[in-house]
């Protein structure tokens, strides 16, 4: 019976294709009108009509199937059959209003619905006469490096077929330049003389932000063997003692980051590598800041108090140095131990709020029969369950017991430690005091989940690390930017301020 079914099912599909293959049916089901008759999700039609593929220079209108199906001879019929069956199934059994269309616009998802072979079929010449310098470099990179498999045309040309408001994949030299209404400009940083919460003021800007006094103490770093979703690098659990420090209530916001960017930004890119590198090596007086980004660093989600994203680890470190110099305090990235201590805020459970990871993120059969129980987690974290497509403003969530917001989510956060899987095992015996991580490494620790994360990744002990190469995948500049990641928009950072002689620790 099973064998019979095995024969029957491919037979059904092939048979269906053969019947469809009568030509006319095939053509009828390939028109734009036919596509649009089912694809009723908002804006599919409208955004296509606003795109460059609708209003082409040659006057040719690129049809739905020319991107969303492969060209004939590249598995066209098979893909058409498969896509058609899937669409019919969805049309009959699902409610299109329940889909998260925003989520489906994301590059990762879009890659599944746009055929690179179709792009190449029309865009035979990747080096047209009008191609810009950046385009030349990018297309050379695409055609000549062996990494091209992970690069799809839409990695850079996501808006080709459907218009995206504010999308740019080009040099963005005006970024951060638009200033809003005139506000009070701080002339002095705030003075801190005792160990309690304070509000820092960034001189020569209207920007201020809250710093929370985190009392020193001991805690168990890492997760016990039985914790759901635990990974090997979260152990062994170590007892760690942390000295008092201040930590920012929220992740560094666009307001804060742009204060840095506008006060230090370098005018355009320098091609004088030698000079640039010399400055970096010297690390002298003046801080030379970020060059303009390539593309839209805020992804068009808005700025203000939303966490800053897309900047590099180097930029985060430089931001801290700059903040130190303009405030006269000692700002830096948190160590991984400080971060986890602050996140746990005394808790030894998977999260700083009550709840079982397995209920927040059901797996296997449980996921099929019941929905995730997210009532509690929703109030504390921005994550995939409540904002799968973008960052949110910090006031959407409740703070942890220390008063810190979004430690577990919204954006993941850089720590100053080098990442090593067995970092905890390498610490000396006994209680570890203020550990700073491995001596050397290639990527830095990234902690806390993001708006893209599922509940398991949001646990206080979960560890991750930067991925410099893939985060710069589509940056066509040579060399790639040291200030902006072209392909990472769910990592930010949070500053800590040392409790030292400059902040009242006499």
């Amino acid at each position, binding site marked *: 019976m099973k064998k019979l079914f095995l024969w*029957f099912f491919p037979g059904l599909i*092939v048979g269906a294709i*053969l019947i469809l293959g009568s030509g006319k049916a095939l053509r009828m089901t390939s028109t734009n009108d036919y596509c649009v008759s089912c694809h009723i999700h908002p804006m599919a039609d409208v955004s296509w009509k606003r795109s460059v593929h609708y209003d082409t220079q040659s006057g040719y209108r690129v049809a739905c199937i020319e991107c969303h199906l492969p060209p004939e001879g590249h598995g066209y019929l098979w893909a058409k059959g498969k896509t058609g069956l899937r669409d019919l199934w969805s049309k009959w059994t699902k409610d299109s209003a329940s889909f998260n269309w925003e989520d489906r616009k994301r590059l990762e998802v879009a890659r599944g619905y746009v055929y690179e072979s179709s792009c190449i079929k029309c865009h035979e010449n990747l080096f047209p*006469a009008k191609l810009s310098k950046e385009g030349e470099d990018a297309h*050379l990179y695409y055609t000549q490096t062996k990494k091209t498999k992970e690069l799809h045309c839409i990695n850079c040309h996501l808006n080709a077929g459907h218009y995206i408001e504010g999308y740019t994949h080009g040099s963005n030299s005006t970024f951060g330049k638009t200033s809003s209404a005139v506000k009070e400009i701080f002339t002095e940083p705030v003075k801190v003389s005792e160990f309690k919460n304070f509000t820092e003021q960034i001189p020569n800007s209207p920007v201020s932000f809250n710093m929370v006094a985190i009392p020193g103490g001991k805690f168990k770093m890492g997760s016990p063997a039985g914790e759901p979703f635990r990974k090997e690098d979260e152990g062994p659990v170590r007892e760690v003692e942390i000295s008092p420090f201040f930590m920012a209530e929220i992740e560094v916001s666009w307001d804060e980051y742009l204060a840095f960017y506008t006060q230090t930004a370098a005018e355009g890119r320098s*091609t004088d590598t030698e000079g640039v590198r010399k400055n970096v090596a010297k690390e002298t007086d003046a801080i030379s800041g970020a060059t303009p980004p390539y593309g839209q660093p805020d992804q068009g989600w808005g700025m203000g108090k939303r966490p800053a994203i897309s900047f590099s680890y180097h930029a985060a470190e430089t931001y801290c140095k700059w903040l130190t110099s303009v405030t006269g305090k000692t700002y830096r990235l948190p160590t991984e131990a400080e971060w986890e201590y602050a996140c746990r805020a005394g808790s030894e459970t998977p999260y700083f709020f009550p709840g079982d990871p397995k209920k927040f993120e059901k797996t296997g059969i449980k996921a099929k029969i019941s929905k995730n129980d997210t009532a509690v987690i929703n109030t504390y974290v921005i994550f995939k369950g409540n904002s799968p497509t973008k960052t949110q403003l910090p006031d959407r969530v409740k703070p942890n017991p220390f008063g810190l917001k979004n430690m577990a989510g919204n954006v993941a956060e850089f720590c100053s430690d080098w990442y090593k899987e067995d970092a905890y095992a390498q610490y000396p015996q006994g209680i570890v005091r203020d550990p700073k991580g491995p001596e050397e490494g290639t990527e830095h620790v990234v902690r806390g989940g993001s708006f893209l994360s599922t509940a398991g990744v949001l646990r206080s002990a979960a560890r991750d690390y930067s991925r410099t190469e893939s985060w710069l995948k589509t940056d066509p500049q040579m060399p790639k930017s040291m200030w902006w990641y072209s392909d990472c928009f769910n990592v930010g950072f949070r500053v800590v301020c040392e409790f030292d002689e400059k902040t009242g620790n006499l």
Partner: protein
Amino acid sequence: MKNSSISRRNFLGKAATVGVAGMVVPTIITGCSRDTKKVVEVPTMLDQAPDGPVLKAGVIGCGGRGTGAAINFLSAGPNLQIVALGDTFQDRIDSCRETIKKQKGQEVPLENCFVGFDAYQKVIDSGVDIIITATPPFFRPEIVAAAVQAKKHVFAEKPVCVDPVGARSIMATAKKAEGMGLSIVTGTQRRHQRDYVAAWQQVKQGVIGDITSANVYWNGGKLWHRDPNPEWSEMEYMIRNWVNWTWLSGDHIVEQHVHNLDVANWFTGLHPVKAVGFGSRLRRVTGDQYDNFSVDFTFENGIHVHSMCRQINGCVNNVSERIQGTKGSTDCHSTILDLAGNEVWKYQYPLDKDGKPGNSVKVDPYVQEHIDLVTAIRTGKPINELENTGISTMAAIMGRISAYTGKEVTYEEMMNSDLKLGPKVFEMGPVDVSKEVPIAGLAYVPTK
């Protein structure tokens, strides 16, 4: 329906079988390839370009080689004209114009002679079909890009760039030219030398087996130099003495030895991925270049190619290539030997003037490359050597940087490097570039 007697299940079952059969057939076909002797076609090389409507060329860079290339071009066939000249210096234009008049009887109109750093664009815009450019290599990427943008065919002398930024620009320009159906020949004249082409054909047909290694040499004497002149600005001095300054020539491994490195790339069909080399400056009189290099190149398939070049008088000289294969070896033009040293192939050179066996090809390769260019244009079958020469030049640049720095240099690193030589300002005055001779182990290391 007529075939209603066929049961539904039967029909679908058959349909399924047809589908499966359809998938199997191509596999069987591809499994049938026979082991026949490979025949590799080479392009026919004419003794003269075919006739056609007048082709007008403009020369950018009117020094010795630019003038030579202009004469070679005019010798390639009928109805060819040089109608515009451009150079940084008036005296160069005058001498070039004079030579063309004397040797070929053509008079370039004075209003089409342009002097200055922007002369190239004026030549391009002067109504020519072809651009012949032989400026110092530093200027090549910009000039070739502008020529292609204006849809001109190009003869561009090797090397085609001096740094990674230039090399990438050349590669992109090559692809743009390809899209426009333009022809570009690049002064790597061994590719137009009939004995080299014949030997290449033999190698491609497997006569020496798989290539296992190669040695390429340009060990020769000192080239030339000019001493500073109090009447010249530093810029004028540097440009007049360009073969001794790295930012202008790329150093002699790039400027001259690229010929031999190009042969290694051409015969293997591959390019280096890694270079480790050394070199020094022993007797060079002016400028900032070395006068000897020795570089070990690792190619894409892991084979090693050793390269040597020297510009010092009074030493043993050797300008050649030698390629070793599993079944034999070749000097890449005249001879193929088997592993025991027996001659298994020899190029049949035409008899010389006295009727004795000669050792040079029928048509001077410096003219042949122009014949091939004009033939490509007139027959509508474009040839485009720019990308290959860009890659060969990049290989030479890798060797240079490795010797200068003492570090290993990879092709990938070069493809991502923003190293751009030369000053930012071009005017007859002081030149803001380093004039230090690089010292291995200390010099700037280009990184990703």
